[in-house]
């Protein structure tokens, strides 16, 4: 087997003990922070909601990078593109539905 092949395999990135533990520690910090913000009632409702959402988004990125090993290398590019497309679709579904349904509920006085 040629050496160039070995290099591609290493470059494929399956993670290492170090990267898994880094990801794990980051995830623990973010999780504890999210629970702490809510349990201690440090902020008012909307601030709490924004902080917890932000922590969730950061944690999802941590999981995707450290556990799913997604990156911009050519081997991973299609995974990344489908992932971005899916996230976009989900955002359209969530934002669109909430916009329509909240307006509907407001006008029908069901809230």
């Amino acid at each position, binding site marked *: 087997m040629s050496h160039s092949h070995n290099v591609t395999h290493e470059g*494929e990135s399956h*993670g290492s003990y170090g990267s898994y533990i880094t990801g794990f520690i980051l995830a623990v910090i973010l999780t504890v922070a*999210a629970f702490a913000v809510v349990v201690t009632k440090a902020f008012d409702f909307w601030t709490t909601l924004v902080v917890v959402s932000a922590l969730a988004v950061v944690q999802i990125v941590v999981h995707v990078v450290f556990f799913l090993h997604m990156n911009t290398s050519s081997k991973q590019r299609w995974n990344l593109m489908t992932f971005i497309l899916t996230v976009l679709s989900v955002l359209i579904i969530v934002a669109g539905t909430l916009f329509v349904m909240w307006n509907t509920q407001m006008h029908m006085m069901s809230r």
Partner: protein
Amino acid sequence: MSHDTTHSPSVGHEEHEDHGSTTVFGFWIYLMTDCILFGTLFTVFAVMCHQFAGGPTGKELFDIKNVEIETAILLVSSITYGFAMLSAFAQRKSGVLVWLFITFLLGLSFVVLEVKEFAELIADGNGPDRSAFLSSFFTLVATHGLHVTFGLIWMVVLFFQVMGKQGLGSRMVTKLTCLSLFWHFLDIVWICVFSFVYLGSVM
């Protein structure tokens, strides 16, 4: 990753490599459809989360201690599965089996805790038929729980396949990689569940 050294360097090897990565990419596409499924269920919950029909609110129902334990379990199981994968790439069969077993126990205790929570809610008359809020809660969280359960069944199958004569060939590593994606993906869904369903309800 096992190296198939019997083929001539370039052609045969590319073919073999391609097969595994195509399978993993196909599985990735399935996960993305699952992502849309969960996205719609979260949307339903967001629309329904204030429709209590005079029944109890999430603030009154949810036990955050229990959710903390469930979250810790899933997070640890994520890293133990990661260690199983590292053992698989290093071709250490015993390592794979030990880490898979630990991951399975963690996953199982998660499911047990969740079933216990559901049983208590239903016993108190707060089942999915109580209000739109509870219907959407049960649908969303139970769909995640079912995914974890199927992941556990899959893990048992792979455990015995690794133990058996298939060992840690390249096909087996591909299978383990697919379950790895599935397991880490479920952890990501759980982040949204504890953030928006549980913490969002008790805010």
